[in-house]
Structure formats: C-alpha cells, structure tokens
C-alpha cells in the first residue's frame, strides 16, 4: 500500500511540476497574491490633507495650525475663506478634513476656559478619518501642554490617572505587520484550489476510470494526492515567507522551522476540506467556483483576519472555527509577531490536524462507496 501511495504521489508531483497552470497555482500565485493583497489591505496613512477655516485669526490660532502641520504629516491644503467652500472641498476629495477655529478662541483660552475646535472629517473613508483624528488629537494635547507651564505637582492634581500604554507584538500599530501574516493564511489556500481541480480533472478527462482498473484504491489515490500537494504547499510557503520578511519587512520572531511544520499541519486541514468538497463535484470549473465561495471569500471576512471574531456570537464562532484559515491565522500571527512556540499554539494545531484527518477519513469512506 505504501508503494502505491508513493507512486501516486510521484505521479502527482510530476504533474504539478510539468503542468504550467498547476505549477503557477501552487508555487507562484501564493507569493504574487500576497504582494497584491498586502498593498490592498494595509491602510497606514502617511499624509493627510487638511483645510482650515480660521475664524479667529489670532496669534493663538496661527501658532496652533503651525503646530499641527509642522512635521509634514498633515498638509495644509487650503486656507478656507467662506463656509460654502467647506463642503465643496470635502465633496471633491481635495481635503480629508476641515478644521474650524471659532471666533474668539484666544479670548476664551486667555480667560482659562476650554477652547473648542471643530473638526469636520470626511466620513466616506472611515479608516483615514479616525487616524487623522487621532493625529490631530495628539498634536492638540501636546500644543496645550506646551502652553501651560504648570509645576509637576499641580499637573498631577489636574490629571490624577496617567495611562501608560504598551502595544505588544506590533508597537507602532503598523497595519502591514498585522495584515501580512494574516494574509499568508489566505494565499496559502491556493494549493487547495489546485488539488480540487486535480481531482475533478481526473474525472473530467476519464483518467479516473483508468486508475480504477489498477490495484490503486481510493485510499491510496487520496492519500497520495494529499501527500504530493502537502509537500508542494510547504515548499510554496518558503517564497511567501521571504516576501513577507524581505519585501514587507515583517519580523519573523518565532521559529521558521516550526512555521513550516505548522504550515504542513494547515495544508493537511485545508487539503482535506478541499478533497472532501471535490469528491462531490465532477467538473474543474465547478470545483473552482465552490472553492472560491466556500473557502476563499469566507477566509477573508469570517476568519478574524480583519475584525476579531465576535466572542459572544455563536454563529460567528461556529463559522470561524470550521474554517482552517482561522486557525492558521492564529498560528501565523503567533509565530511571526508574537514569537511564540508550540505551547501557545497547540489548540489551533490540534484543531487543524483533527479537521484534516476527519475530512480525509470521511472522503475515503464516501470515495469507496462511489467505486463500488
């Protein structure tokens, strides 16, 4: 039996290497797609355009605006003269926000009252809007602090709790560093596409019947295919890791050998799912469509890649835990960003292995029935 599995695996391997399309799907597409998707899913903004409607026109408002824009992150696009211009600028995308300084700001502040400054953000780009607001907020606090030179003791009296924030694993909160390890899980689904088309192609071309006539049984065929695609998938992970670390500069804090080992674990889970689905299909195109709808799209949105999966929603938990990608995202972010080992990752590891073995056993069972 081992020999039969080995010969099937060798045949599949040869096929993957010789057939251009499969080769592309297994070895090139994951790294290529990672580059594209990473640009797509990172929203670190480095330059914001701002319009200012200064109705105070005092020395205070001028120095405030200068403090906001001094380092070039926030660019003063236009000094607005009339109210109508505000909407015009926002609608035509010239500015991301308009700062409205009310008349009499300087007098109020001189009297010791809180100065009020209005910010009108372009809500159509929520990510940019909240980042810009955070930037302006930080600069405003610093500007206010620079104005009042109070002794340390008085300051403590006025701000009794001081929060010391520390962001673990990703200190600059870089979207790229967070997204790239997550997206690795999405692009590594591609070998699963290839194995699904490979199984259906055998049916479409009629070579499956040829195999029935040989001593190769369903078990040998499925395990052989799985072994071939699993090892190719692990090899394909190498360029993916290189793209992540060398091109995007994402730190790989954990053990890279462990990462490849757990990639094999993920391959087992996702290829098992893929074989299970392909078993019901007889056309290559159908396999592509089903894989796209069942695996690829949910992997983007239900796996915790973008938003964390809601802990309290049973439905969301169920969907997420049935996706192999969810567990692999935990593993990938764990090894890349957190630098953790197997002790922290055994739950997703076990989940993937269980999933893979279970799908494989069910598929073998169903497959035998179809042969008989």
């Amino acid at each position, binding site marked *: 039996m081992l020999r039969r599995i080995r010969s099937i695996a060798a045949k599949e391997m040869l096929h993957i290497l010789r057939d251009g399309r499969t080769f592309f799907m297994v070895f090139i597409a994951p790294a290529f*797609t990672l580059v*594209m998707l990473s640009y*797509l899913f990172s929203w670190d*903004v480095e330059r914001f*355009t701002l319009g200012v409607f200064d109705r105070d026109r005092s020395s205070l408002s001028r120095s405030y605006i200068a403090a906001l824009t001094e380092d070039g992150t926030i660019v003063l696009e236009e000094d607005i003269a009339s109210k109508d211009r505000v*909407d015009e600028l*926002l609608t*035509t995308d010239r500015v991301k926000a308009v700062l409205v300084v009310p008349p009499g700001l300087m007098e109020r*502040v001189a009297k010791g009252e809180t*100065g009020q*400054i209005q*910010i*009108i*953000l*372009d*809500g*159509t780009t*929520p*990510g*940019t809007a909240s980042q810009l*607001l955070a930037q302006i*907020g930080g600069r405003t606090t610093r500007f*206010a602090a620079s104005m*009042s030179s109070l002794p340390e*003791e*008085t*300051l403590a*009296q*006025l*701000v*009794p*709790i*001081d*929060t*010391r*924030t*520390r*962001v*673990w694993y990703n*200190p600059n*909160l*870089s979207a790229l560093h*967070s997204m790239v390890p997550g997206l690795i899980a999405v692009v590594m689904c591609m070998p699963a596409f290839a194995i699904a088309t490979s199984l259906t192609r055998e049916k479409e071309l009629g070579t499956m019947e040829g195999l029935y006539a040989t001593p190769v049984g369903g078990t040998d065929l499925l395990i052989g295919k799985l072994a071939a695609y699993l090892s190719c998938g692990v090899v394909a992970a190498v360029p993916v890791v290189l793209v992540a670390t060398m091109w995007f500069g994402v730190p790989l804090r954990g053990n890279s050998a462990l990462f490849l080992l757990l990639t094999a674990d993920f391959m087992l889970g996702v290829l098992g799912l893929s074989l299970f689905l392909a078993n019901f299909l007889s056309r290559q195109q*159908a396999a592509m*469509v089903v894989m*796209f*709808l069942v695996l690829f*799209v*949910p992997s983007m*949105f*239900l796996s915790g890649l*973008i*938003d*964390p999966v*809601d*802990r*309290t929603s049973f439905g969301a938990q169920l969907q997420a835990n049935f996706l192999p990608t969810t567990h692999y995202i935990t593993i990938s972010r*764990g090894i890349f960003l*957190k630098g953790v080992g197997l002790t*922290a990752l055994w739950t997703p590891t076990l989940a993937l292995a269980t999933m893979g073995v279970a799908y494989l056993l069910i598929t073998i069972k169903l497959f035998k029935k179809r042969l008989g």
Partner: protein
Amino acid sequence: MKMWHRFTRLVVKDFQQFLRDKLLLTFIFVGPTLQLVMMGQATASDIKHLPAAIVDRDRTRDSRALMVTLDNLEELDVTRHLDSEEQVAPLLDRGEVSVAVLIPQGFGSTLASPAGRASVQLWVDGSNILGAYAALGAAEGAIATTGGEIAAERRLSSEAGGPRLTSFDLLPTARFNPELAHSHYLLPSQLSLIVLIVTMLVSSVGIVRERETGTLEQLMVTPLRRIELILAKATLPTLVAFVDFLAMLAITVWVFGVPIRGSLLLLMVVTLLFIIAQLTWGLVISAVSATQQQAVLLIFMIGILSVAFSGYLVEAENMPVLMSWISNLFPISHYLSMLRAIMLKGATIGQIWTQLLALLVLGFASLALSLRSFRKTLE
C-alpha cells in the same frame, strides 16, 4: 432591417447560451451576493466584547470602580481577574485576552490624596490591528473619564477652584457618514469590483467559447459585419453586468443602509459608461486567450491588479507616486471615486466631471485597441 434581424438573432442566441450555463450563472449572481453580505456583516458592526484581563493589585473601592467601568464598555468584557503581572504574557501570547489593565498597589490611596497621581498600565495585543485600536480607544477613554471625574471632585474640595490647565476640546463630526461605518466605505468598493469581474468574465468567456468550439469561424462566414458582431457580442455582458449592478446596489442600500445621496440616474449612467469601458478589456482578453481557462486566469490577475490600484482600501493618494500614476490608467479607479462621490457625498455632475472625462478617454482608447486586436484575431 435585415441587418437588424441578424443582429438580434445573435444576441438571442448568446442569451440562450448564457442561461443554459448554470455554473456561470451561479458564479455571477450567487458569488457576489454572498461576498457582499459577508463583507457587510463583518464590517457593519463595531468591534465588541474583546476579552480583557485585569490585574488588580490594589483591591480597593476605587480599583473595583475602574474595573466595573471597563467591564461596562461595549468594546470590552473583563474575562480574567489575575493576581500578578506574570500571568498576563501567556494569555496575550495565546490570544485569550486582547487587552490587560494593570492597577498598581496604592492606586486608591494615591487618588484619595489631593495631589497624587496614580499610573495605570494598559497592555494591548497589536497583532490584530483593528481589535487593538478598538481596545485602546475604549480603555484609554474610560480611564481618562474616570480621571477627569476625580479631578473635578478635587477642584470642588480645594478652595478658589485651583489652577487650570489650558485645554482644547476637539468636536469632531464626520460628514457623509456620521457613525464612521466601515461598510459605507467597503461596500461601494466591492460593488465596483463585482461589476468589473462580471463584465470581463461574461464578455471574454462568450467569445473564447466560440473560438474553443470552432463556432467563431462559422460566425465569420455569416453576412454579419465585424462591427455588428462586436456590438452583438457586447450586448449580453452589458445587460448582465448592469442587472448584477442593480441587484447588488439594492442589497447595499436596503440591507446595509448605505445611502444614495446623489442622483440615481447619474449613478446608472456612470455605471453604464464604466461597464462599456471595461467591456473592451474583456474583448482584448478574449483576443489573446485561446481557452476559457486562460481567460479566467487573466481576468483573475487583472481583477487583483485593479483592486490594488483602484483605491479599494488604500486611497490612491496614499500610494507611492508611480503606483498612483499607474492607477489612473485603470477605469475602475475613476469609477470607484465617482461611485463614492455620488452615493455618499451626493456629488453632482459638475463635481465629478474630471473623472467622468478620464473614464470616457480610457473607454475610447481601449475600444480602439480592442477593435484592432479583435480584427487581427479574426483574420
């Protein structure tokens, strides 16, 4: 009259063929719906119930009050009460908590003294960035509010109001999308991508299939002129893409509440223009690919490129200069910015005419190119 008859026959034949292809139909109508709904669900609601750990080394009334305040936040649920700092790291490592708050010993007594300052540590898991932002914003905000209340009490108890800090209140309002719902940004992106993929898929697969089965040559020997052939072949994809657009628009508006503030008519005209401009790309693809598989692979690549360059998530202005220049060559980047402007900002034709013009120019340019490449493949 006769020409018109030939033309309609071909269009009717295309429709029959299209309706028979159950797989393509599923992919075109079910796929996008599923995608749109999942995306809407994943992004329409705010991030809630992130698990939090509290290390309370103070165990006073004040520390418990702070803990209750944090637990009452929608964004956070306090799931772990720990005794020491060392217990936090393994929980963050395993992702069991997203945020940890460390309240030091003496927190309550420091706050009770008139000028004491206690410091609270906030540890956040930055590996999922949106979760980190939500946890940070909520926890920092709640702690600052608690601090503000204590400061106000102190001021009341001290004579003459005490000294004041220069402070500014920022009053932010978000124009066009007051709740800053991410779905308002993402769903139009997805809508434009669906229109792009469907247009190219239907237009190129239709012609490539004729070539694969050898019927393209039969079409050539019919009295149909080349321009009639192209027009007839363009009718089906235009209609299908437009119907798909209307269906997806209905979901976007009625299910997820994204508004259409501008003119619906203008939106439809712009969409039709975009479909026609993108259709010509489909024709070029069909001219260079020999099999349906090749065509699908090419569309997949162009789809990914379009997404990357269109400002789907990253706005074009934030790209490197070269990339943002290239992005102008993709019809979708102009279409998407018009789509957002019309739907969310209520822009009028006068405010979007530059993008409209760009789309027209690109449409004509690729039409000319596709006519040439199509003629070549026919001859």
